[in-house]
C-alpha cells in the first residue's frame, strides 16, 4: 500500500487500454512507482484513488474506439467513479492522459475544465486522412508550466486514428489566452507545423498536441513520450549515433522525452 509520504501513481487499465506497462516503466525510471489498476477494481472499491497522487489514463484502444475514441471508457468512468475523480481533482494531485487517455479526458471534460461542471468542450476527431497514423513527431512546449519545465522539444511517436484536436473558436481563444496549450506539433527545426502534414499528423487546429486544464493539474497529450524513453527508440538514432561517434562523443542512453516524466516527479518533490 502506498505510504502517504511517497507519492504513487495509479495507472488505469482494462477494456483495451494497452500502454500501461511502458507508462509505468517511464515513471519508474523518472523516480515514481505506480500501480496498474483495472478500472473494475476501482469500481469495486478494491483500490482507492485517494491512495495516489497521480492518476494516469494511458494509451490504448479502449472499446476498440467504438462510439468514438475514449468515449465508452469515459462513460464507464463517469457512470461509476465520477465522485471519486472529482474529489481527486480537488486535492493537490495530477492527472495525465496520453493518446487514448487524452481522448478519455476530453470526453470526461477534465480538460479544458474551465469550471466545475466540466462539460465536453474539445474533441479529438478522426485524423484528416481517416486512418491511424504512426510516426515520430516533434513537439514544442507552448506554455511554461509544471509539465513543460526544462523541455526544449520532445521527439516521440504518435499512433492514433482520432487525434484531430477541435474546439469552437471561443474555446480555442480562451485556451490560448489562458496558456493552456502545453505542446504543439512543429517541424524538425522547431518552427510551427502550420497544419502541414506530416509535421502536424492529424489536422489538429493550431497544431495542438496537448492541453492542460484551467488549473493546470490535468494534461492531455496525443503523442507518446513513454514509447521513446531511450536514445535507441528515436526514429533517427542510427544517424545521431554516427554523428556522435565521429565526433568522439559518447552515446546517451536516455532520450529527451524522459524530462517530461521527471517534471511530474519533481512536482511532487517540490
Amino acid at each position: 500500500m502506498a505510504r502517504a509520504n511517497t507519492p504513487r501513481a495509479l495507472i488505469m487499465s482494462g477494456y483495451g487500454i494497452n500502454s500501461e506497462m511502458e507508462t509505468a516503466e517511464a515513471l519508474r525510471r523518472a523516480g515514481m512507482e505506480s500501480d496498474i489498476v483495472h478500472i473494475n477494481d476501482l469500481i469495486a472499491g478494491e483500490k482507492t484513488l485517494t491512495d495516489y497522487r497521480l492518476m494516469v489514463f494511458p494509451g490504448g484502444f479502449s472499446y476498440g474506439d467504438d462510439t468514438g475514441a475514449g468515449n465508452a471508457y469515459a462513460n464507464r468512468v463517469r457512470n461509476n467513479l465520477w465522485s471519486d475523480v472529482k474529489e481527486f481533482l480537488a486535492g493537490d494531485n495530477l492527472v495525465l492522459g496520453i493518446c487514448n487517455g487524452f481522448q478519455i479526458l476530453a470526453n470526461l471534460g477534465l480538460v479544458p475544465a474551465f469550471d466545475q461542471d466540466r462539460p465536453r468542450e474539445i474533441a479529438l476527431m478522426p485524423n484528416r486522412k481517416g486512418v491511424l497514423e504512426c510516426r515520430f513527431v516533434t513537439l514544442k512546449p507552448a506554455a511554461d508550466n509544471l509539465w513543460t519545465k526544462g523541455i526544449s522539444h520532445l521527439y516521440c511517436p504518435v499512433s492514433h486514428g482520432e487525434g484531430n484536436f477541435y474546439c469552437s473558436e471561443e474555446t480555442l481563444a480562451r485556451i490560448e489566452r489562458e496558456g493552456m496549450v502545453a505542446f504543439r506539433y512543429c517541424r524538425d527545426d522547431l518552427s510551427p507545423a502550420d497544419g502541414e502534414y506530416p509535421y502536424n499528423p492529424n489536422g489538429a487546429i493550431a497544431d495542438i498536441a496537448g492541453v492542460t486544464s484551467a488549473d493546470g493539474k490535468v494534461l492531455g497529450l496525443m503523442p507518446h513520450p513513454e514509447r521513446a524513453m531511450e536514445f535507441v527508440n528515436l526514429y533517427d538514432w542510427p544517424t545521431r549515433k554516427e554523428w556522435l561517434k565521429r565526433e568522439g562523443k559518447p552515446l546517451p542512453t536516455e532520450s529527451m522525452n524522459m524530462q517530461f516524466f521527471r517534471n511530474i516527479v519533481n512536482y511532487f518533490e517540490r
Partner: protein
Amino acid sequence: MASYVHRIEVQYTRDPRLPTRTERFRSLGFPLRELHLVDVYTIATAQRDFSPEELSQIGAQLSNPVVQRYSVDRPTEAEFDYAIEVGFLPGVTDNAGTTARQTIEDYFNFQFGEEEAVFSSQLYLASGDLTPEALQRLTAALANPLVNRVHVKSREEYAGKGMDVVTPFVRLHELQTAGTVDLDLPDAELARIGKEGILDPATGERRGPLALDLAQLHAIRDYFRKLGRKPTDVELESLAQTWSEHCKHTIFASAMDDDVPRGLYKTCIQAATNTIRAAKGENDICVSVFTDNSGAIVFDDEHLVTCKVETHNSPSALDPFGGALTGIVGVNRDTIGFGLGAKPCINIYGYCVGDPDTEPALFRGKNRQNPILPPRRIFEGVVRGVDVGGNCSGIPTPQGWCYFHDRYVGKPLVFAGTVGVMPRARGGRPLHEKQARPGDLIVMVGGRVGKDGIHGATFSSEALDPASPVTAVQIGDPITQKKFSDVIVKEARDLDLYRSITDNGAGGLSCSVAEMAKESGGCHVLLDRVPLKYPGMAPWEIWISESQERMTLAVPEEKIEAFMDLMQKREVEATVIGTFTDTGRCVVEYNGETVMDVDLDFLHDGLPKKHLRTEPVETVYPEPDVPCPDRLDDLLLTMLSRKNICSKEFISTRYDHTVQGGHVLGPVQGAGRVQATATLTKVVLGSMKGVGLSQGLFPSYSELDPYRMALAAIDAAVRGLVAIGVPMETIALLDNFCWCSSDEPGRLWQLKRAAFGCYDGAVGFGAPYISGKDSMFNDFSGFDADSNPVKVSVPPTLLITSIGVHPDVTTAVSMDAKFDGDLVYVVGETSEELGGSEYLAHLGIEGGSVPSLDIEAAKVRYGRMTDAIQKGLLASAFPVTHGGLLVALAKVAIAGRIGMDLAIPGGMRPDTYLFSESLGRFVVTVAPSNREAFEAIFGGDAHLLGRVGGETFRVSAGEQTLIKQPVTAMETAYKAPFGGY
C-alpha cells in the same frame, strides 16, 4: 421477440474525413460530389422500453456534442441523392453494437437479455450524378454481400421516413439433438458423405464437406463396426476436423516416393532442427519446437521468445477484412496459448495478392455469377483487417511485406505472425511446459459460440434464408480477446490458477479439448454448458464451431473459484464445460445423452496412412536474349516503381509499430523513409537485447527451380537479420508452405524439392525450424466471363520467417547511407543469375538461371558482417534481394536522401550485373576512417563501388555513364505507385 425498437443516428457537424472519403471514391471512378457518413445504432429491447428522455441520454452517451449531433427515431437531415445503409447480416460480429450495448447497460444499470441487442450500421449519404449502374457499383464497393446487408433509398423514398428499421437477430429452427449416421453404404454413397457432407434429416440437405476420403471413411466405419454401433453426427464431424489436412498435415506427414518413407516433415523440417540442435549441443537455442502453438527460443537467462506464423487465405478471398483480422487475432492466440501463456509483443504480416491495378473477370459461378473480389478490394481489405486487429490489441506490427503476382487473383495469401515473450520460469515452474491432469476442469474463456466458420468457407445453402447466421466468414473481436489476453498473461498465469491452456482455432472445441485431453489421457465434456450466441444450435455445431476469441484451459478444482472470480472481475466470460479424465476416451454429453464416445488413440492416430508419388517437372527455358540499353536511367526509375520493389509505406504508418515502447529499427528507415527488410524491437524493456525479424519469399523462382527457391528464401531471411547485427548463432526459422494443387504429382515433386532445399539451407546456416504451417490447396476454380471453366493456382509459395536475438541493440545498423564521403561496397559475389528476377519480369521474360547459394561462403561472410558490426565499422547495411544490386543501392541512397558516385566493374553486361539477384550480398557504407579495418575483415569479398555524397545518384562503367539521376527523382518514383493509398 424484441418489442421495442429505436434508432439513433449520429452525424458529424463537420466531418474531417469527408474530403478524404469523397476523394477516395472519386479516384475509383464514382462521380460523387460528397459522400457523408452517419453512424446508426438500432436498439432492440423486450423487457423494458426507453422513454424519449432516456433515448436522448443514450444519444448523448453515443456521441460527442462538440462535433456531432444525434437524432432519435428521426431521419438525419442532409442534402444528398442516395442513401445507402450498410449493416451486418444476422450472426456477424458487431463490435460497435456490442460497445453501445455495454454503454447503455452501464448507464441504466440493467442487462440486455435474450432477443435484445444493439445493432450498428453505417448510413452513407451520397450526392452526385449516379447512374443506376454506378449506384450499384458504389453499393458493391461499400458492402460485402457475405457479411453485410444493404438498403438503398433515393432522396424521394427517404424523405420524411428515413431508412427502414432492421434488427438482424438470428433465428434458428434446428434439430437440437445428435443423430446417427449410417456408414454401411456403397462406396459411391460414402464418398458423397465425405465430399458433400452428412444428409441433414430435418432439411434434407447436405451439411457441407467433411473432406474425408474413402480410405478414411472406411477406417471410421470399421472402427464403429467393432464398437457395434453407428457413429453419431458429432463423432463423424469431430473426426473430420481432427483428421483434416489443416490439423494433421497429411501431405507433409505421408510417405513420399521411395526416398522419403517418413514424410517430408520428419525428413526435412524436423530432421533439420534435430541435426542442428545436436550439433549445437550446449549452445542450442531451442526451448520448444513444433509441439506447442508456437515455437520458442532462448532470449536471455530469464526470458524466452516465441514465434508462430499462420495463413488465413480462403476466408480472406471471401471477406478480406474479416479474414485478415481473424488471421492476426488468431495467431495472437497461438502466443497466449503457448506454454502457460506468453505475452504477444510483435506482429508480423505478409500479403500475396493480385495486381491492384487489374480487374480480372473471374466468377465462382457460371453466367457471371458470384464474381471474385477485385485485387484492389482484397488488398485494401486485408491491410485494414490487420490494422484493426493489431492496433486494437496493443501489439506493434513493424514487420511485413507485400508481393504482387497475377496468379494470386483467385486466392490471396495472407500471412499473419506473432512473437511472444515470457519468463522462462516462475516460482521454480518452467512456463513453457503445461500438463492438464485427470480431474482438472475444462474451462472455456472468451467469446460465445455461434455457427461461425462451420465447414470453413463453404457456401451453406442456409445463407439463402435471411434470418440464418452467416457461417462462411468471421469477423474478429479484438477487444474481447484483449480482455482475456490481459487477465491470462498478466494475472492468472502468475497466480498459478491453471495447468494448461490452448487456443480455439480450426475445429473449435473439438480440436482444442481433444488436443489437451492427450495431456491427461481423456476428457468428459458437457456440451450443453457451452454459452451460445443464440439458441437453436445442434450439438455437432457447438462442438466444431470456430467462433473466435476463445481459449480452453485446464483448471484444478481447488483453484476454480479463484479463477472464475478473477475472470468475472475482468468481465471475461468463463464457463466450466467438463472435466479432463484418464479414461483414454473422448466423451461428450449433451442434455444428459452421450453424443460422442471415442478412443483418444483412434481420434488422434486412427488416420490411415498414405503413400504419395511425385513426378519430376522438367523446366527448360532459353537464356534471355535482349539488348542492353546504353543508359539505364529510365530502367532504374521503372524498377523502383515496380510494385514488388516500391514503397508500401501507407501500411507501415497505419500499423502501430511503437506500442509497448520497444521500437529500435522500424519498418521505414532514414530521412527518405524507405521500407526495411528487417526490424528490431526491444521486448524486455530493461534489457539491451532485442528481437530481430526478417523474411524471405521468392515465388517467381518456384516454377523454375523450387530447390533454389527455398534456399533463396532461407538466405534472404537469415541475411536480413545479419545486416542489422543479429548473429547467425541466435537465428531460428519458421516455414510457411502455401502450395497449389497438392494432389498432382508434379506439384508434389516441386514440394519435395523445396523441402529438400529447406533441409539443406537450415542445416547449412545452423538455423533450426521452430514452427511452421502449410496450406496445400491454394487454387481457385471458377469461370471466365464466357462461362469457360478456369483454374488459377498460386505459384508455389514458401515464406521463411527468421527470428534472432540481437545481443546489444545500440550496435544495430540501419539501412540508410549517412555521410558525404563514406565508401560504398557490395559485399559478396555477383553472378549472371537473372532467372525469376524482377528485371526479367519487367521485360516479360520467363526463364534464366535462378540464383544459387554457396552456403559455406555465405556463412563465412555473415560471420564477418557480425564482427564488423560489433566493432562499429559499418555506417549502414542492407541486403540485396528483389531487383538486385542497383535497386539495393538506390534504396540505400533514397533512405539517406543523399547521392552516390559509383563505378561498376567490367566483365559482365551492366544490366546483368546490376539486376542479377545473386544471393548472399549486402550493400554497406563505411566511414573512410574505418576503411582499413573493414577491408582487413572482408578482404577480396568486399568490392568498393564508390562514395556517398551530393544530391545525384551516378553509376558508370569504365568511361560510360549509365545513370545520372537526382535522388529526389528516384524517391518520387519509389513512392509513386501507392502514393494515393
